[in-house]
């Protein structure tokens, strides 16, 4: 039974359960690579989370474009399957209100050998960062603001030969 490849939801996910479902029944799998992105407080001092510090992020809101998001990520997985010899892939992305430390995104990939799974996982994450319609709004003691896109994320996708131009202009 093949699970849906993409899940956009407000609720949390269980990494172990997701990985188990992805590789279930496929004895050709020799490698599983997963990436979990979490809500980081950019302003937290090294090694500690100081929620009362000025600039500390107290909440994060994730908005998306329902319908387009799923379609965009499905297309990314199709592209990953064309480029890499992988057996299965799954992307889970949370939306709505989140707190520092929460899990945001999961990308999990299975393949026969590790190289392809590592590459496909990184490719999917790089692609998602600049081409999937999500927007983060962070709240600090000073108020709420939309997070700026990073040129570094465009550069990460360019390594795969794809010009993004998301953060440019």
């Amino acid at each position: 039974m093949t699970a849906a490849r993409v899940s956009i939801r407000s609720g949390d996910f269980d990494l172990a359960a997701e990985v188990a479902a992805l590789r279930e029944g496929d004895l050709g799998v020799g490698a599983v690579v997963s990436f979990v992105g979490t809500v980081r407080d950019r302003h937290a001092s090294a090694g500690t989370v100081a929620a009362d510090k000025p600039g500390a992020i107290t909440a994060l809101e994730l908005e998306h474009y329902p319908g387009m998001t799923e379609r965009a990520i499905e297309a990314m997985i199709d592209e990953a399957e064309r480029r890499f010899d992988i057996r299965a892939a799954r992307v889970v992305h949370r939306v709505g209100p989140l707190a520092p430390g929460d899990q945001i995104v999961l990308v999990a990939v299975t393949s026969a050998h590790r190289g392809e799974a590592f590459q496909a996982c990184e490719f999917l994450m790089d692609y998602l960062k600049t081409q999937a319609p999500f927007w983060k709004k962070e709240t600090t003691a000073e108020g709420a603001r939309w997070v700026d896109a990073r040129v570094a994320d465009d550069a990460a996708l360019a390594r795969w030969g794809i010009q993004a131009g998301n953060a440019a202009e």
Partner: protein
Amino acid sequence: MKVHVRYFASLREALGPNEAVELPAGATLGALRDVLVARGGRHAEVLARGRAVRCSLDQRMADEHEALADGAEVGFFPPVTGG
């Protein structure tokens, strides 16, 4: 022809979630943006040339040279920041 425009994130906060816009047949995405800017006010401010605005056509990332068809769904939004 009529197209359906949807706004997200900071553009949604400024302009509301969606609206229908009448356009001449064959208009491009860029022409639609120009029509909206020409209204002045908040539309002119947040969709101004030089502002980082991304767009989609029928739920796929698109560029402004693409032509619109009657009933098309267009999205305008800031650069994406997921993951």
